[in-house]
Protein backbone atom coordinates (compact mmCIF):
# COMPACT_ATOMS: atom_id res chain seq x y z
CA UNK A 1 0.00 0.00 0.00
CA UNK A 2 1.34 3.44 -0.87
CA UNK A 3 -0.12 6.78 0.08
CA UNK A 4 0.59 10.46 -0.38
CA UNK A 5 -0.24 13.61 1.54
CA UNK A 6 -1.55 16.36 -0.70
CA UNK A 7 -3.17 19.77 -0.42
CA UNK A 8 -6.28 20.20 -2.54
CA UNK A 9 -9.13 22.71 -2.52
CA UNK A 10 -8.29 24.24 0.83
CA UNK A 11 -7.30 21.27 2.94
CA UNK A 12 -4.79 18.48 3.36
CA UNK A 13 -5.67 14.94 2.35
CA UNK A 14 -4.36 11.43 2.33
CA UNK A 15 -4.34 10.23 -1.27
CA UNK A 16 -3.78 6.91 -3.02
CA UNK A 17 -3.18 6.16 -6.69
CA UNK A 18 -6.36 5.71 -8.70
CA UNK A 19 -6.20 3.38 -11.66
CA UNK A 20 -3.09 2.38 -13.55
CA UNK A 21 -0.86 5.00 -15.16
CA UNK A 22 -3.62 7.56 -15.59
CA UNK A 23 -2.05 10.16 -13.32
CA UNK A 24 -5.08 10.13 -11.03
CA UNK A 25 -5.29 10.21 -7.25
CA UNK A 26 -8.16 9.27 -5.00
CA UNK A 27 -8.50 11.39 -1.89
CA UNK A 28 -9.69 9.82 1.37
CA UNK A 29 -13.04 11.60 0.95
CA UNK A 30 -13.61 9.91 -2.42
CA UNK A 31 -12.70 12.76 -4.75
CA UNK A 32 -10.62 11.84 -7.77
CA UNK A 33 -8.08 14.45 -8.85
CA UNK A 34 -5.25 14.70 -11.34
CA UNK A 35 -1.84 14.43 -9.73
CA UNK A 36 -0.81 17.80 -11.21
CA UNK A 37 -3.83 19.50 -9.62
CA UNK A 38 -2.62 18.95 -6.08
CA UNK A 39 0.28 20.19 -4.00
CA UNK A 40 2.32 17.21 -2.88
CA UNK A 41 3.61 17.39 0.67
CA UNK A 42 6.11 15.13 2.43
CA UNK A 43 4.01 11.96 2.71
CA UNK A 44 4.08 11.50 6.51
CA UNK A 45 4.47 13.54 9.69
CA UNK A 46 8.25 13.89 9.80
CA UNK A 47 10.10 13.83 13.13
CA UNK A 48 13.88 13.86 13.43
CA UNK A 49 15.66 13.80 10.08
CA UNK A 50 18.85 11.76 10.20
CA UNK A 51 21.10 11.66 7.17
CA UNK A 52 24.14 9.67 6.14
CA UNK A 53 27.19 10.97 4.36
CA UNK A 54 29.32 8.74 2.17
CA UNK A 55 27.39 5.53 2.69
CA UNK A 56 28.08 4.14 -0.78
CA UNK A 57 31.64 3.07 -1.46
CA UNK A 58 31.71 4.45 -5.00
CA UNK A 59 30.40 7.87 -3.91
CA UNK A 60 32.96 8.08 -1.11
CA UNK A 61 35.62 7.41 -3.75
CA UNK A 62 34.09 10.07 -5.99
CA UNK A 63 34.59 12.63 -3.23
CA UNK A 64 38.11 11.30 -2.56
CA UNK A 65 37.31 10.23 0.97
CA UNK A 66 38.48 7.17 2.77
CA UNK A 67 36.20 4.49 4.05
CA UNK A 68 35.14 4.70 7.67
CA UNK A 69 34.57 2.38 10.54
CA UNK A 70 31.55 4.34 11.78
CA UNK A 71 28.64 5.87 9.85
CA UNK A 72 28.94 9.59 9.12
CA UNK A 73 25.66 10.87 10.50
CA UNK A 74 24.26 14.37 10.34
CA UNK A 75 20.92 15.90 11.26
CA UNK A 76 18.51 18.12 9.38
CA UNK A 77 15.67 20.40 10.45
CA UNK A 78 12.02 20.48 9.32
CA UNK A 79 12.39 23.70 7.31
CA UNK A 80 14.44 21.90 4.69
CA UNK A 81 11.60 19.56 3.65
CA UNK A 82 9.48 19.78 0.53
CA UNK A 83 7.27 17.31 -1.29
CA UNK A 84 7.10 15.88 -4.80
CA UNK A 85 7.01 18.42 -7.64
CA UNK A 86 8.48 21.11 -5.37
CA UNK A 87 11.01 23.81 -6.15
CA UNK A 88 14.51 24.12 -4.77
CA UNK A 89 16.45 27.36 -4.91
CA UNK A 90 19.88 27.63 -6.48
CA UNK A 91 21.58 30.87 -5.41
CA UNK A 92 23.08 32.62 -8.43
CA UNK A 93 26.57 32.88 -6.94
CA UNK A 94 27.21 29.14 -6.57
CA UNK A 95 29.18 26.81 -8.85
CA UNK A 96 28.33 23.35 -7.53
CA UNK A 97 24.88 22.38 -6.32
CA UNK A 98 24.07 18.69 -6.58
CA UNK A 99 21.19 16.27 -6.02
CA UNK A 100 21.47 13.05 -4.01
CA UNK A 101 18.96 10.27 -4.61
CA UNK A 102 18.51 8.32 -1.37
CA UNK A 103 16.39 5.61 0.16
CA UNK A 104 14.50 7.15 3.11
CA UNK A 105 13.62 4.77 5.94
CA UNK A 106 10.64 5.79 8.08
CA UNK A 107 10.54 4.59 11.68
CA UNK A 108 7.15 3.27 12.82
CA UNK A 109 7.81 2.06 16.33
CA UNK A 110 10.01 3.43 19.10
CA UNK A 111 13.52 2.04 18.84
CA UNK A 112 16.00 2.22 21.72
CA UNK A 113 18.92 -0.18 21.96
CA UNK A 114 17.60 -2.32 19.12
CA UNK A 115 19.75 -5.11 17.72
CA UNK A 116 20.42 -5.48 14.06
CA UNK A 117 18.31 -8.61 13.83
CA UNK A 118 15.27 -6.84 15.31
CA UNK A 119 15.83 -3.53 13.53
CA UNK A 120 13.58 -3.89 10.49
CA UNK A 121 10.59 -4.59 12.74
CA UNK A 122 10.79 -0.90 13.73
CA UNK A 123 10.47 0.32 10.14
CA UNK A 124 7.03 1.57 9.03
CA UNK A 125 7.96 2.10 5.41
CA UNK A 126 10.08 3.82 2.83
CA UNK A 127 10.12 6.74 0.46
CA UNK A 128 12.51 8.54 -1.86
CA UNK A 129 14.61 11.49 -0.75
CA UNK A 130 16.53 14.00 -2.81
CA UNK A 131 19.00 15.56 -0.41
CA UNK A 132 20.57 18.58 -2.14
CA UNK A 133 23.94 20.05 -1.21
CA UNK A 134 25.70 23.25 -2.22
CA UNK A 135 29.37 22.50 -1.98
CA UNK A 136 30.49 26.10 -2.43
CA UNK A 137 29.47 26.73 1.17
CA UNK A 138 31.48 23.87 2.67
CA UNK A 139 33.65 24.93 5.58
CA UNK A 140 35.84 22.63 7.62
CA UNK A 141 33.96 23.14 10.87
CA UNK A 142 31.37 20.66 12.13
CA UNK A 143 30.87 19.18 8.68
CA UNK A 144 28.67 18.88 6.81
CA UNK A 145 27.63 22.47 7.51
CA UNK A 146 23.97 23.35 7.74
CA UNK A 147 24.52 26.05 5.13
CA UNK A 148 25.49 23.24 2.71
CA UNK A 149 22.90 20.62 3.65
CA UNK A 150 20.05 22.22 5.59
CA UNK A 151 18.83 24.92 3.27
CA UNK A 152 15.15 25.79 2.89
CA UNK A 153 13.43 23.41 0.50
CA UNK A 154 16.58 21.41 -0.21
CA UNK A 155 15.31 18.01 0.97
CA UNK A 156 12.54 16.56 -1.16
CA UNK A 157 10.61 13.57 0.25
CA UNK A 158 8.02 11.50 -1.54
CA UNK A 159 6.04 11.12 -3.62
CA UNK A 160 4.63 8.17 -1.68
CA UNK A 161 4.99 6.63 1.70
CA UNK A 162 5.28 2.91 0.86
CA UNK A 163 4.57 0.44 3.64
CA UNK A 164 7.44 -1.84 4.63
CA UNK A 165 5.36 -4.92 3.82
CA UNK A 166 5.38 -3.84 0.17
CA UNK A 167 9.16 -3.64 -0.08
CA UNK A 168 10.50 -7.18 -0.35
CA UNK A 169 14.14 -6.33 0.27
CA UNK A 170 15.30 -2.80 1.10
CA UNK A 171 18.86 -4.03 0.52
CA UNK A 172 18.23 -4.66 -3.17
CA UNK A 173 16.60 -1.62 -4.76
CA UNK A 174 17.82 0.17 -7.86
CA UNK A 175 18.20 3.95 -7.55
CA UNK A 176 18.46 6.30 -10.52
CA UNK A 177 18.49 10.05 -11.04
CA UNK A 178 17.53 11.83 -14.26
CA UNK A 179 18.30 15.47 -15.00
CA UNK A 180 16.09 16.82 -17.77
CA UNK A 181 15.35 13.24 -18.78
CA UNK A 182 18.97 12.12 -19.00
CA UNK A 183 20.16 9.50 -16.53
CA UNK A 184 23.01 10.82 -14.40
CA UNK A 185 23.12 8.59 -11.35
CA UNK A 186 22.58 4.88 -10.84
CA UNK A 187 23.16 2.48 -8.01
CA UNK A 188 21.61 -0.20 -5.88
CA UNK A 189 20.97 -0.16 -2.14
CA UNK A 190 23.05 -3.34 -1.81
CA UNK A 191 26.12 -1.07 -2.31
CA UNK A 192 25.53 0.67 1.02
CA UNK A 193 28.50 0.50 3.38
CA UNK A 194 26.18 0.43 6.41
CA UNK A 195 22.81 -1.19 5.65
CA UNK A 196 19.42 -0.17 7.02
CA UNK A 197 19.38 -2.70 9.85
CA UNK A 198 22.88 -1.75 10.97
CA UNK A 199 22.03 1.97 10.88
CA UNK A 200 19.02 1.44 13.14
CA UNK A 201 21.13 -0.57 15.57
CA UNK A 202 23.87 2.08 15.51
CA UNK A 203 21.56 5.06 15.97
CA UNK A 204 19.24 3.49 18.54
CA UNK A 205 22.25 2.69 20.72
CA UNK A 206 22.56 6.39 21.62
CA UNK A 207 19.32 8.05 20.58
CA UNK A 208 15.75 6.84 20.91
CA UNK A 209 14.11 6.74 17.49
CA UNK A 210 10.38 7.49 17.38
CA UNK A 211 7.61 7.02 14.85
CA UNK A 212 8.06 9.55 12.07
CA UNK A 213 11.81 9.80 12.42
CA UNK A 214 13.42 9.25 9.05
CA UNK A 215 16.87 8.03 8.01
CA UNK A 216 18.22 9.21 4.66
CA UNK A 217 20.64 6.42 3.87
CA UNK A 218 23.13 8.10 1.54
CA UNK A 219 23.63 8.34 -2.19
CA UNK A 220 25.58 6.36 -4.80
CA UNK A 221 28.08 7.56 -7.39
CA UNK A 222 27.01 10.12 -9.98
CA UNK A 223 26.23 13.40 -8.29
CA UNK A 224 26.44 16.36 -10.66
CA UNK A 225 25.77 20.07 -10.83
CA UNK A 226 22.28 21.33 -11.55
CA UNK A 227 21.20 24.70 -12.93
CA UNK A 228 18.14 26.87 -12.56
CA UNK A 229 15.36 25.42 -14.74
CA UNK A 230 16.57 21.81 -14.49
CA UNK A 231 14.06 19.11 -13.69
CA UNK A 232 15.55 16.45 -11.42
CA UNK A 233 13.80 13.10 -11.02
CA UNK A 234 14.95 10.56 -8.44
CA UNK A 235 13.63 7.05 -8.90
CA UNK A 236 13.78 4.03 -6.63
CA UNK A 237 12.50 0.64 -7.65
CA UNK A 238 9.01 0.11 -6.24
CA UNK A 239 8.84 3.54 -4.57
CA UNK A 240 8.06 5.75 -7.56
CA UNK A 241 9.62 8.86 -9.07
CA UNK A 242 10.29 12.02 -7.05
CA UNK A 243 10.38 15.14 -9.24
CA UNK A 244 11.87 18.50 -8.35
CA UNK A 245 12.61 21.72 -10.22
CA UNK A 246 15.59 24.00 -9.63
CA UNK A 247 14.68 27.68 -9.55
CA UNK A 248 16.75 30.85 -9.32
CA UNK A 249 16.98 33.73 -6.87
CA UNK A 250 14.54 35.87 -8.86
CA UNK A 251 11.60 33.72 -7.69
CA UNK A 252 12.46 34.69 -4.11
CA UNK A 253 13.23 38.35 -4.76
CA UNK A 254 16.86 37.79 -3.74
CA UNK A 255 19.15 40.37 -5.29
CA UNK A 256 16.40 42.24 -7.12
CA UNK A 257 16.58 46.04 -6.91
CA UNK A 258 13.26 46.53 -5.17
CA UNK A 259 13.30 43.23 -3.26
CA UNK A 260 10.27 42.02 -5.20
CA UNK A 261 10.03 38.50 -6.49
CA UNK A 262 9.08 37.31 -9.94
CA UNK A 263 5.79 35.47 -10.18
CA UNK A 264 6.21 31.70 -9.98
CA UNK A 265 5.62 29.76 -13.17
Amino acid at each position, binding site marked *: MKRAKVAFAGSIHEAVPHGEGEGLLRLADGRRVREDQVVWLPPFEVG*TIIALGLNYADHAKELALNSQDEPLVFLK*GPGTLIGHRGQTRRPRDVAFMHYECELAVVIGRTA*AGVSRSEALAHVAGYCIANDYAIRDYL*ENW*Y*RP*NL*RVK*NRDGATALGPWFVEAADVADPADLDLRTFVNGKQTQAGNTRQMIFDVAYLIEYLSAF*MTLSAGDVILTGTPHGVGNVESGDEVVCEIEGLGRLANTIVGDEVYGVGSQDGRSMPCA
Partner: protein
Amino acid sequence: MTVSVSMAFADLRSIPMDVAPFRLSGAVYGALLNHRAALAALGDKVGKPPHDAAPKAPVLYIKPRNTFALCGDFVPFPAAHDELEAAANLGLVIGRSACRVAPDDALEHVAGYLIVVDVSIPSASHYRPQVRFKARDGFCPLGPKVTARADIPSPDALKIRTRIDGVLVQTASTADLIRPAAQLLAAVSEFMTLAPGEVLATGAAAPAARVRSGQTVLVEIDGLGELSNRFLGIGA
Protein backbone atom coordinates in the same frame (compact mmCIF):
# COMPACT_ATOMS: atom_id res chain seq x y z
CA MET B 1 -2.52 34.67 11.70
CA THR B 2 1.09 35.78 11.83
CA VAL B 3 0.09 39.34 12.62
CA SER B 4 -2.13 38.45 15.56
CA VAL B 5 0.58 36.22 17.01
CA SER B 6 3.23 38.90 16.81
CA MET B 7 0.93 41.42 18.50
CA ALA B 8 -0.05 38.95 21.17
CA PHE B 9 3.38 37.85 22.30
CA ALA B 10 4.45 41.31 23.33
CA ASP B 11 1.83 41.13 26.08
CA LEU B 12 2.67 37.70 27.39
CA ARG B 13 4.72 37.42 30.53
CA SER B 14 5.36 33.74 30.81
CA ILE B 15 4.88 31.36 27.95
CA PRO B 16 4.25 27.72 28.67
CA MET B 17 6.40 25.61 26.41
CA ASP B 18 3.73 23.10 25.48
CA VAL B 19 1.16 25.48 23.99
CA ALA B 20 1.05 26.50 20.33
CA PRO B 21 2.37 28.64 18.75
CA PHE B 22 5.18 28.67 21.29
CA ARG B 23 5.28 24.92 21.62
CA LEU B 24 8.74 23.60 20.99
CA SER B 25 8.39 22.24 17.52
CA GLY B 26 11.10 19.64 17.49
CA ALA B 27 13.88 21.83 16.19
CA VAL B 28 16.58 23.29 18.40
CA TYR B 29 19.52 24.76 16.53
CA GLY B 30 22.64 26.05 18.20
CA ALA B 31 25.70 28.07 17.29
CA LEU B 32 29.20 26.89 18.14
CA LEU B 33 32.35 29.03 18.34
CA ASN B 34 30.16 32.12 18.60
CA HIS B 35 31.57 33.19 21.93
CA ARG B 36 34.92 34.96 21.92
CA ALA B 37 36.27 32.61 24.59
CA ALA B 38 35.24 29.54 22.56
CA LEU B 39 37.07 30.66 19.44
CA ALA B 40 40.04 31.93 21.44
CA ALA B 41 40.36 28.53 23.15
CA LEU B 42 41.27 26.99 19.79
CA GLY B 43 44.30 29.24 19.53
CA ASP B 44 46.34 28.82 16.36
CA LYS B 45 44.48 25.59 15.44
CA VAL B 46 41.96 27.82 13.66
CA GLY B 47 44.13 28.57 10.65
CA LYS B 48 45.67 25.11 10.33
CA PRO B 49 44.49 21.85 8.73
CA PRO B 50 41.93 20.45 8.71
CA HIS B 51 40.17 23.78 9.27
CA ASP B 52 42.49 26.04 7.24
CA ALA B 53 40.53 29.19 8.07
CA ALA B 54 38.29 30.71 10.71
CA PRO B 55 34.60 29.95 10.22
CA LYS B 56 32.77 32.42 7.98
CA ALA B 57 29.12 31.37 8.24
CA PRO B 58 27.62 30.51 11.64
CA VAL B 59 28.77 27.05 12.79
CA LEU B 60 25.57 25.24 13.68
CA TYR B 61 24.38 22.03 15.24
CA ILE B 62 20.95 20.47 15.73
CA LYS B 63 19.58 18.95 18.91
CA PRO B 64 16.87 16.44 17.89
CA ARG B 65 13.69 15.87 19.89
CA ASN B 66 15.03 12.85 21.80
CA THR B 67 17.55 15.18 23.48
CA PHE B 68 14.98 17.52 25.03
CA ALA B 69 14.78 17.63 28.80
CA LEU B 70 12.88 20.08 30.97
CA CYS B 71 13.88 21.63 34.29
CA GLY B 72 14.18 18.90 36.92
CA ASP B 73 14.53 16.04 34.44
CA PHE B 74 17.43 13.65 34.86
CA VAL B 75 20.05 13.65 32.13
CA PRO B 76 21.14 10.05 31.47
CA PHE B 77 24.90 9.81 31.96
CA PRO B 78 26.49 7.16 29.71
CA ALA B 79 28.52 4.66 31.71
CA ALA B 80 31.42 4.59 29.27
CA HIS B 81 32.37 8.20 30.06
CA ASP B 82 33.79 9.95 33.12
CA GLU B 83 32.79 13.49 32.27
CA LEU B 84 30.35 15.34 30.04
CA GLU B 85 30.36 18.95 28.94
CA ALA B 86 27.43 21.17 29.83
CA ALA B 87 27.52 24.33 27.70
CA ALA B 88 25.15 27.08 28.87
CA ASN B 89 23.45 29.15 26.16
CA LEU B 90 20.93 31.91 25.79
CA GLY B 91 18.21 30.49 23.50
CA LEU B 92 15.98 32.55 21.22
CA VAL B 93 12.43 31.19 20.85
CA ILE B 94 11.12 32.12 17.43
CA GLY B 95 7.69 33.74 17.34
CA ARG B 96 7.37 34.68 13.67
CA SER B 97 8.80 32.97 10.63
CA ALA B 98 12.31 34.39 10.18
CA CYS B 99 13.60 34.24 6.59
CA ARG B 100 16.44 36.50 5.40
CA VAL B 101 15.79 38.97 8.18
CA ALA B 102 17.94 42.06 8.63
CA PRO B 103 19.81 42.46 11.93
CA ASP B 104 17.81 45.61 12.68
CA ASP B 105 14.49 43.81 12.85
CA ALA B 106 15.64 40.27 13.61
CA LEU B 107 14.51 40.41 17.23
CA GLU B 108 10.97 41.27 16.08
CA HIS B 109 10.81 37.60 15.10
CA VAL B 110 11.65 36.42 18.59
CA ALA B 111 8.82 35.54 20.99
CA GLY B 112 11.03 35.11 24.00
CA TYR B 113 14.09 33.58 25.57
CA LEU B 114 15.04 30.50 27.49
CA ILE B 115 18.10 28.68 28.77
CA VAL B 116 19.56 25.92 26.58
CA VAL B 117 22.19 23.53 27.92
CA ASP B 118 24.08 21.82 25.11
CA VAL B 119 25.34 18.59 26.65
CA SER B 120 28.13 16.76 24.82
CA ILE B 121 30.53 13.91 25.20
CA PRO B 122 33.87 15.77 25.14
CA SER B 123 35.55 15.60 21.74
CA ALA B 124 38.76 17.10 20.45
CA SER B 125 37.36 17.28 16.91
CA HIS B 126 35.76 20.41 15.53
CA TYR B 127 36.03 19.11 11.99
CA ARG B 128 33.46 16.36 11.83
CA PRO B 129 32.58 15.27 15.35
CA GLN B 130 30.16 12.36 15.51
CA VAL B 131 26.50 13.16 16.08
CA ARG B 132 26.47 10.58 18.88
CA PHE B 133 28.48 13.05 21.01
CA LYS B 134 25.63 15.57 21.04
CA ALA B 135 22.39 13.73 20.21
CA ARG B 136 21.98 11.31 23.10
CA ASP B 137 18.65 11.16 24.89
CA GLY B 138 18.28 14.00 27.39
CA PHE B 139 21.32 15.94 26.14
CA CYS B 140 19.45 19.23 25.71
CA PRO B 141 17.86 20.63 28.87
CA LEU B 142 15.62 23.62 28.04
CA GLY B 143 13.79 26.04 30.28
CA PRO B 144 12.80 26.73 32.95
CA LYS B 145 10.15 28.58 30.90
CA VAL B 146 9.98 30.91 27.92
CA THR B 147 10.36 34.49 29.13
CA ALA B 148 8.66 37.01 26.87
CA ARG B 149 10.92 39.25 24.82
CA ALA B 150 9.25 42.32 26.31
CA ASP B 151 10.57 41.36 29.74
CA ILE B 152 14.19 41.39 28.64
CA PRO B 153 15.21 44.90 27.53
CA SER B 154 18.26 43.60 25.63
CA PRO B 155 19.62 40.08 25.07
CA ASP B 156 23.12 41.47 24.59
CA ALA B 157 24.46 41.83 28.11
CA LEU B 158 23.00 38.95 30.08
CA LYS B 159 25.14 37.13 32.62
CA ILE B 160 25.13 33.33 32.33
CA ARG B 161 26.20 31.46 35.46
CA THR B 162 26.80 27.73 35.63
CA ARG B 163 26.90 25.95 38.99
CA ILE B 164 27.73 22.32 39.63
CA ASP B 165 26.45 20.99 42.94
CA GLY B 166 26.12 24.62 44.05
CA VAL B 167 29.69 25.63 43.13
CA LEU B 168 30.00 28.42 40.57
CA VAL B 169 32.16 27.01 37.76
CA GLN B 170 31.59 29.48 34.92
CA THR B 171 30.41 33.04 34.49
CA ALA B 172 29.86 34.23 30.94
CA SER B 173 28.02 37.07 29.25
CA THR B 174 26.10 37.39 26.02
CA ALA B 175 28.07 40.63 25.58
CA ASP B 176 30.96 38.42 24.43
CA LEU B 177 29.11 36.77 21.56
CA ILE B 178 30.90 37.24 18.22
CA ARG B 179 27.53 37.52 16.49
CA PRO B 180 25.10 38.93 19.05
CA ALA B 181 21.56 37.52 19.03
CA ALA B 182 20.16 39.74 16.26
CA GLN B 183 23.18 39.33 13.97
CA LEU B 184 23.21 35.58 14.51
CA LEU B 185 19.51 35.21 13.69
CA ALA B 186 20.00 37.33 10.57
CA ALA B 187 22.98 35.25 9.41
CA VAL B 188 21.22 31.93 10.03
CA SER B 189 17.99 33.04 8.39
CA GLU B 190 19.93 33.87 5.23
CA PHE B 191 19.84 30.17 4.31
CA MET B 192 17.34 28.52 6.64
CA THR B 193 14.00 29.88 7.74
CA LEU B 194 13.35 29.53 11.45
CA ALA B 195 9.71 28.81 12.25
CA PRO B 196 7.59 29.72 15.28
CA GLY B 197 8.44 27.46 18.19
CA GLU B 198 11.96 26.72 16.98
CA VAL B 199 14.89 27.63 19.18
CA LEU B 200 18.28 29.08 18.32
CA ALA B 201 20.95 28.70 21.01
CA THR B 202 23.35 31.61 20.63
CA GLY B 203 26.66 30.15 21.75
CA ALA B 204 28.50 29.17 24.91
CA ALA B 205 31.77 30.25 26.45
CA ALA B 206 34.75 27.92 26.80
CA PRO B 207 35.89 25.83 28.45
CA ALA B 208 32.46 24.31 29.02
CA ALA B 209 31.63 23.12 32.51
CA ARG B 210 32.54 19.46 33.09
CA VAL B 211 30.01 17.35 34.93
CA ARG B 212 30.29 13.89 36.48
CA SER B 213 27.63 11.32 37.10
CA GLY B 214 25.50 12.15 40.13
CA GLN B 215 26.11 15.89 39.92
CA THR B 216 23.53 18.61 39.34
CA VAL B 217 24.04 21.36 36.78
CA LEU B 218 22.23 24.62 37.46
CA VAL B 219 22.33 27.38 34.87
CA GLU B 220 21.05 30.86 35.60
CA ILE B 221 20.65 33.68 33.08
CA ASP B 222 19.70 37.21 34.15
CA GLY B 223 15.91 37.54 33.99
CA LEU B 224 15.32 34.00 32.70
CA GLY B 225 15.45 32.06 35.96
CA GLU B 226 17.32 28.86 36.73
CA LEU B 227 17.46 25.56 34.90
CA SER B 228 18.50 22.63 37.04
CA ASN B 229 19.18 19.05 35.96
CA ARG B 230 20.80 16.15 37.72
CA PHE B 231 23.03 13.89 35.65
CA LEU B 232 22.64 10.25 36.57
CA GLY B 233 24.47 7.15 35.41
CA ILE B 234 22.66 4.62 33.29
CA GLY B 235 23.62 0.99 32.79
CA ALA B 236 26.25 -0.16 30.34
